[in-house]
């Protein structure tokens, strides 16, 4: 009998320009709950994706019961008893609980599906896990926690010996968390090993037996939970130096308020609640928070891409009446969205088109476009932001992620915004391009623009912002001066309303 049911040794994974995993490892004992911790971007998800074959690892070894394995896809992993419950549940909402549990492996009876057997086995599993849900109900009518239980039941029905839970409690109430934990304990008794990914320290100390901490794609330590303190856990997660990663700060935060947000609330879920703050001329305001803290929703609501239910937004003291992107742009707000592919680029159009599209109003006279000016200004974007592209007429999809991001930044610079909302502008781009974007932000602020900068990487927030607003569960958990704070405080604030 092996001591470990799963061993991952020296896993390496490189994306263009980024070392996502560098000697990552994970050793999982049967019948235990193993917490996997680390900041956003530490490589937890990447490690799991390598396990399930969603990414192909560059180097390293994965042993299941001491036997080397390499899964091609999650399906194969499932066949070997390795299963994952994702943070975003992938379920067919229009179908019944029963269908979702058996999806992809319906038992058959000749050429027809054996519903009797499905129902019998599902009921047995539900009983075993003490889940009280009618298997014939449509899954879309259930709550998130119930849907999560069903995912776990699905894993159990596949005879999973390893179940990965990715942030399972991020949208559960306290009593739902209790139920989840009782299910986890039951699974432990049946020798199922659980990899538990979470940011919530209290939970980790309650449910986990062991913890592995990752940072910057590297394994930092693995220890029984009883042998580590909260403080040491946090410091191992965040500790790193950041010298010369950031350009010198030359901007000055002035007293003049450019943007004033008062008690805004979004109309549709996921919505921000009661968000208020002021943004000053020349200021870079960082926004920190965990995944699901609705930072993106906040800036999208300010910009008018999401509908506002309550509250007021003022620019230079004047309240905005119409909350739609077109109006916001006219009033001097720009938004670089988080999802570059989904809401940023026009992939098949050329660089010039992509820079000019938010600014057509100023190029057009009687609806006819002044291409000379657009060409000149696109050239300015390419030169100023050093966009690497063979020409203005190259389709943007052929550029690297960093260069695409610069084109989008350029698009917004051309609208001469007073307030620039940047949602994870440095995500997925290489180190050099990151530095250039930091420099650009500081230069803009030095010229009197105001910037809101959302980031999941705390060092860059601490490196270039003036103040940091921490979001927690859709609310403002606090606004701190960058010079007087540290990662520990930001992490504490981020968990305030969980």
């Amino acid at each position, binding site marked *: 009998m092996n001591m470990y049911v799963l061993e991952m040794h020296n896993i390496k994974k490189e994306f263009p320009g980024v070392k996502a995993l560098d000697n990552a490892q994970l050793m999982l004992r049967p019948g235990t709950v193993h917490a996997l911790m680390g900041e956003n971007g530490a490589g937890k998800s990447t490690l799991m994706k390598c396990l399930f074959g969603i990414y192909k690892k560059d180097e390293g070894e994965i042993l299941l019961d001491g036997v080397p394995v390499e899964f091609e896809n999650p399906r194969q992993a499932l066949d070997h008893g390795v299963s994952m419950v994702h943070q975003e549940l992938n379920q067919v909402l229009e179908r019944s609980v029963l269908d979702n549990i058996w999806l992809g492996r319906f038992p058959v009876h000749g050429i027809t599906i054996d519903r009797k057997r499905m129902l019998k086995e599902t009921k047995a599993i539900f009983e075993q896990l003490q889940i009280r849900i009618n298997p014939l109900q449509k899954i879309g009518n259930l709550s998130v926690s119930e849907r999560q239980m069903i995912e776990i039941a699905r894993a159990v029905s596949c005879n999973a010996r390893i179940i990965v839970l990715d942030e399972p409690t991020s949208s559960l109430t306290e009593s739902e968390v209790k139920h989840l934990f009782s299910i986890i304990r039951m699974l432990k008794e049946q020798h199922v090993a659980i990899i538990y990914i979470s940011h919530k320290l209290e939970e980790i100390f309650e449910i986990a037996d062991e913890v592995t901490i990752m940072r910057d794609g590297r394994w930092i330590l693995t220890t029984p939970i009883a042998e580590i303190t909260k403080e040491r856990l946090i410091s191992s997660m965040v500790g790193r130096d950041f010298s010369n990663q950031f350009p010198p700060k030359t901007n000055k935060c002035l007293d003049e308020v450019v943007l004033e947000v008062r008690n805004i609330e979004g109309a549709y879920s996921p919505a921000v609640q009661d968000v208020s703050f002021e943004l000053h001329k020349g200021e870079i305001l960082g926004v920190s928070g965990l995944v699901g803290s609705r930072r993106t929703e906040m800036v999208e609501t300010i*910009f008018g*891409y999401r509908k506002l239910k309550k509250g007021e937004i003022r620019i230079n003291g004047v309240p905005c009446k119409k909350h739609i*992107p*077109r109006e*916001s*742009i*006219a009033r001097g707000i720009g*938004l670089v*969205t988080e999802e570059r592919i*989904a*809401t*940023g*680029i*026009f*992939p*098949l*159009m050329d660089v010039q*088109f992509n820079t*000019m*599209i*938010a600014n*057509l*109003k100023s*190029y*057009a006279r009687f*609806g*006819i*476009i002044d*291409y000379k000016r657009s060409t000149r200004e696109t050239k300015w974007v390419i030169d100023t932001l050093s966009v690497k592209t063979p020409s203005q007429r190259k389709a943007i999809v052929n550029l690297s992620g960093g260069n695409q991001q610069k084109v989008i930044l350029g*698009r917004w610079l051309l609208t001469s915004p007073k307030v620039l909302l940047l949602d994870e502008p440095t995500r997925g781009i290489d180190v050099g391009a990151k530095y250039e974007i930091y420099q650009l932000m500081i230069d803009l602020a030095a010229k009197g623009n105001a910037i809101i900068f959302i980031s999941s990487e705390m060092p860059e927030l601490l490196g270039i912002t003036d103040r940091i607003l921490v979001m927690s569960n859709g609310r403002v958990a606090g606004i701190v001066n960058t010079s007087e704070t540290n990662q520990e405080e930001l992490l504490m604030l981020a968990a305030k309303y969980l």
Partner: protein
Amino acid sequence: MSPTMKKIISEFLLKNALYIVMFVLLTIIVMVQPGFLQLQNFYFIITQSSSRIILALGIASIIVLGYTDLSLGRNVGMAAIVSSSLLQAANYSQRIFPDLPPFPIFFPILLVMILCSLFMVVQAFVVSKLKVAPFIASLGFQLIIYGLQSIYIDQLNDSSPIGGLDPKFSNFAQGAIEFSNFRIPFLIIYAFIASVLVWFIWNKTKLGRNMYAIGGNIEAATVSGVNVIFNIFTIYIIAGMMYGFGGALEGARTGSVTNMLGQGYELDAIAACVVGGVSMRGGVGTVPGVVAGVLLFQIINYGLVYIGVNPYVQFIVKGMIIVLAVAIDSQKYVKRR
């Protein structure tokens, strides 16, 4: 052969597969009937293509937006019926409106252009505001318009073809500018003007840029401040005007308008767009592409008739070309992992 060479060749083949197939077909046609390569034939083809070019350009804007329109054919039919019913010769014995005073042909043409635009406005509302899938919405409009025009022609003309058109109206479609021994049909001139106009809108105006933006990435367009609804309405109105004009042309060209005129035109127009490189996913397409698509399609059409291919076989060939065109287009979007 080195792998890179292989890659280049396969990419070239994929990119030009459609033209290669067209070329092969053309070669077969010419081999069977060398007489096909007469100037006269190409003159016919271009003339025949003219109203199709106008209609295809109308629908192409909608396809570039990322939508589609199956009501084109019935819009054309309605425009033909209404315009010709108002433009019958004064001395024709079976006039629908016997007491109608003669007026410039310009008015009925404008009227049907407005009429089609109105239907397209409602359709634009249904697809952009009510979010009904364009396929279904336009299918509904196809039926609604057909019902209305059937009532019109049934009540007023006992469902018999509308004939005896005003010679001025006939001349509007059948006439030509004539130099000594050189003749340019009006049809070609209309198609040329329409092409230039649409090219200008697509490439030089804010409307055109917004159209590509909406078709290319509607969410990014919204974030970039594009007034999505307004632009969709405008494009639909323009398309409606082109349908109306094309319909009047078809009416005047055929000279005897039945209730069946226009049936299936949308499929030919969509096919021509696809063959001309307009992506059914939206955001991609050029005016020269659409014009070339119509011409290529018409050449094959005409050629197959010319060499006497069984008309049923012609359907098969056309169908295969359409599927091939879309298959090639789709290859560009296949996710490679």
